[in-house]
């Protein structure tokens, strides 16, 4: 499959009064055409910063891409100027934000907000753009688009606004759609509809999607692959099956164990990961998760673990995969769902630098 996006060793930092916050610390992943990659992690893990860096939407200053490359169809966008980025934003990559209530301009007609993209990137005339805007609204499932196109955002419900946002994002047929927690602010029934719509449109338009969320239920629903982020790094990455049925990183275990499930018996308490994420102005030595990790080894506090490869697609960054590490049992809730996957290598392999 063709690689659409390659992120290599991305580092993003923010200059603040309290010092430099290293929000993203060496993130690498790639994305194929038509694929959906979910990035999960708790607040402050750097998932939103990573995705906004791909469009260079982080405010600079105080933000800065301090290292690494972002290759879009083989071309590095990190050194590009604002003027060059304007041609990429909305056309090659577009974005859906978390809160549909605030991400549309309240004093501009919804149609006009869609037309802006079409006029900018597809050189359409006003009439053509308006007709296309009506088509797009119909495509995202808004009834009576001819009337809706002239309405203002406050006349739309939350779910409809998110549909309108999707229409804006898809207006210029982008190759990559970044959805930054698109369903978090919506109620559950609407969430399912929006996810369904996104999957449907992805099939029709063959767009790649980066889906940022902290909801593992949503991940299982939409993603092909999953990257788990913690403290500005990807700690585990693999296909949905690998992450859900054969997780290797203790942080992923913690996330999965804290997910409510119908099989949980009602007396069992829902597990939580103790503690809080580390301060990224001064990231801890060794493994960033060590302080909250009940399986932490002595070396976790001394030296950062390398990335181990468990299968062709499965990577995890934990010393537990080292041949000398003691055998540990994942928590009960996770063990119940574990199963042997055929693609797993016989032994985890350390990933060489520069891969």
């Amino acid at each position, binding site marked *: 499959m063709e690689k659409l996006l390659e992120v290599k060793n991305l580092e993003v930092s923010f200059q603040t009064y309290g010092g430099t916050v290293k929000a993203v610390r060496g993130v690498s992943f790639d994305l194929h055409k038509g694929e959906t990659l979910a990035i999960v992690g708790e607040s402050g893990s750097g998932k939103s910063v990573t995705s906004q860096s791909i469009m260079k939407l982080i405010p600079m200053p105080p933000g800065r891409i301090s290292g690494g490359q972002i290759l879009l169809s083989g071309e590095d966008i990190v050194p590009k100027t604002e003027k060059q980025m304007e041609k990429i934003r909305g056309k090659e990559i577009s974005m859906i934000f978390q809160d549909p209530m605030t991400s549309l*301009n309240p004093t501009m007609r919804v149609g006009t907000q869609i037309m*802006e*993209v079409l006029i900018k990137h597809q050189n359409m005339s006003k009439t053509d753009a308006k007709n296309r805007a009506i088509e797009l609204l119909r495509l995202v499932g808004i009834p009576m688009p001819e009337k809706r196109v002239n309405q203002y955002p406050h006349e739309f419900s939350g779910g409809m606004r998110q549909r309108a946002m999707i229409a804006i994002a898809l207006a210029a047929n982008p190759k990559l759609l970044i959805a930054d927690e698109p369903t978090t602010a919506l109620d559950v029934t609407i969430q399912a509809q929006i996810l369904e719509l996104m999957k449907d449109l992805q099939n029709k338009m063959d767009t790649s999607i980066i889906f940022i969320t902290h909801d593992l239920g949503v991940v299982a629903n939409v993603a092909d692959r999953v990257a788990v982020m913690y403290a500005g790094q990807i700690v585990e990455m693999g296909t949905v099956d690998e992450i859900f049925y054969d997780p290797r990183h203790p942080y992923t275990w913690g996330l999965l164990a804290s997910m409510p499930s119908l099989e949980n018996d009602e007396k069992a308490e829902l597990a939580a990961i103790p503690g809080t994420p580390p301060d990224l102005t001064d990231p801890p030595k060794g493994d960033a998760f060590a302080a909250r990790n009940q399986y932490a080894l002595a070396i976790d506090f001394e030296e950062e673990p390398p990335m181990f490869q468990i299968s062709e697609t499965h990577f995890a960054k934990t010393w537990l995969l080292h041949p000398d590490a003691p055998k540990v049992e994942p928590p009960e809730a996770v063990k119940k769902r574990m199963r042997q996957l055929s693609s797993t290598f016989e032994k985890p392999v350390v990933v060489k630098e520069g891969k």
Partner: protein
Amino acid sequence: MAKYIGKRLLYMLLSLWMIVTATFFFMRIAPGNPFASEKKLPPEIEANLNAHFGLDKPWYAQYWEYLVRIVNWDFGPSFKYKSQTVNDLINEGFPVSFLLGMEAIFIAVAVGVLLGIIAALKHNRWPDYTAMIVAVLGISVPSFIMASFLQYFLAIKMGIFPVARWETFMHSVLPAVALASTPMAFIARLTRSSMLEVLANDYIKTAKSKGLSRGVITVKHTIRNALLPVVTYMGPLTAGILTGSFVIERIFGIPGLGAHFVTSINNRDYTVIMGVTVFYSILLLVSILLVDIAYGIIDPRIKLAGGKKGE
């Protein structure tokens, strides 16, 4: 919309009636009368004058007579300027004051908004600091000091503008600038803070993620939304400029209406006090109505009561 405006006009009449009534009675409570001067008038003459102007009638008769006259847009004769009616005074003075006021409002809004936008776009850099220093100066220096300052430097020292009087357009520049300085500074600060607020909104990020350029985002997405507080301020601004202009008119020797507003009170010139008050009140009420209508046009979320959406 028509229904809404009709309703508003009705409320305006009610407010006007309350203003007229309050002014009428407060004026009578104030000690002294139009004919009081250093030399005491013989009682017969005073009685004659009172009879001539209808001041010998009981208060309710005078009040009623006055209401009827206002409805007919006749403010009566001035007590002080013997040969002129109040209508004459207004007809002569108002065009001058209006022109000066409009010029001042134009300067205040145009320069204020511009300074505010520049300050917000260059937030925490030197253009921002410069604009805000100008704004602080404008707010803290009273208009009469600003006026003398402008007269001294631009008129007397440099001779660019005439010092005073009201003849050509050049004569109107200095008084308009002096009058505009405080509201301009206020508008600059208002625009700056509201621009910064709008710029931090999610929909600005959406606009950026669509690939729109900074210029387009500023013009189409930011300024319009940031101007709402400025529009709100337009009502009080009109009031401030109209009532504030008498000082400036005095300093520059401009034959406007503002002067009458003050002198008539000193003179107890009852008809002029009433006439000018009523006239200014109408002006104010109309400008407030216009501000409210402008509101609904700028922000579609504000629906004027009784109006149908989209109209």
